[in-house]
């Protein structure tokens, strides 16, 4: 098990925890930020998978633009999920 494969497993585990965290959290802003972290980890995984183009786009879009759009809407719609 080379260290890189170990890193992969850790990143994949982090992805799953992010997804479960988003599922369980009631505070929408926290979900949006967790989604941003989820996108960053995905960007790392893809950078290692030999896909730099896609990693760059996912980081800028997933973590950047989508999260900002979510936070803008959450600030106008209400932060707590019932």
């Amino acid at each position, binding site marked *: 098990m080379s260290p890189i494969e170990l890193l992969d497993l850790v990143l994949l585990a982090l992805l799953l925890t992010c997804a479960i965290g988003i599922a369980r959290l009631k505070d929408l802003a926290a979900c949006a930020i967790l989604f941003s972290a989820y996108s960053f980890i995905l960007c790392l995984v893809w950078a290692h998978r030999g896909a730099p*183009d896609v990693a760059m*786009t996912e980081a800028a*879009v997933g973590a950047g*633009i989508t999260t*900002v*759009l979510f936070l*803008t*809407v959450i600030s106008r719609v209400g932060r707590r999920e019932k």
Partner: protein
Amino acid sequence: MNAWRTGRILTTVLIGALAVPLMYGVLHLPPPGQADAPAHSNVSAKYIEHGAEHGGSENLVTGVLLNYRALDTFGEVLVIFTAWLAVAAVAGTARQTGHESTPPSPIVDYVIRMLAPFIAVFALFVIVNGHVLPGGGFQGGVLLGAMLILLSLAHGGEPVADVVSLRTWIWLRAAGVLVFALVALLGLPLTGYLFGLPTDPTLRHALMIVLELGIGIGGGAVLGGLYFSIAGVERS
């Protein structure tokens, strides 16, 4: 409330049940990373073999996007403009006043204003070097969009949306589709097929740069526009 509770349990069971066939089916695919898997030995092998001289770019992904599967990218550029069309049709372009966004602290304001030109230069670099290094029209466009959003976060949105008239913004947002349509039409006389890029390296290289710039500027303007509409700062 228990109706909602049972609904949740039912969905959890349904999704759990769905997991089994999905995972079982996926397990029977050739393992990822195997060199002789069909994913690498069919179309992709041809791309890698003839990528440089056909596709016209060392970065094969850009070659695939702009040359081999140009119709996909044209559809793609159209989807991103249609998203802005949809948002404008639903949200309207009237400027929603009344919700005051808290002005950021001067430090954030200063840092963003300092960073903005570097992001712009980096975005341009990514667009123009799309055929040699990882990058291209989309990545550059996304970076430009992110810069627009950062600036409007720093200045409260209205000044950034007012930097040019709404009419110019719309022309900028349609840049991707219009440039792509022109180059596609140009393909007819040059190669006898729509969406065809000529085989002469320098002309093809120039056309690809034009396409990348169109996609980048169009994408960036649209993503900025999406944020303006959602934050309610679009010019009316």
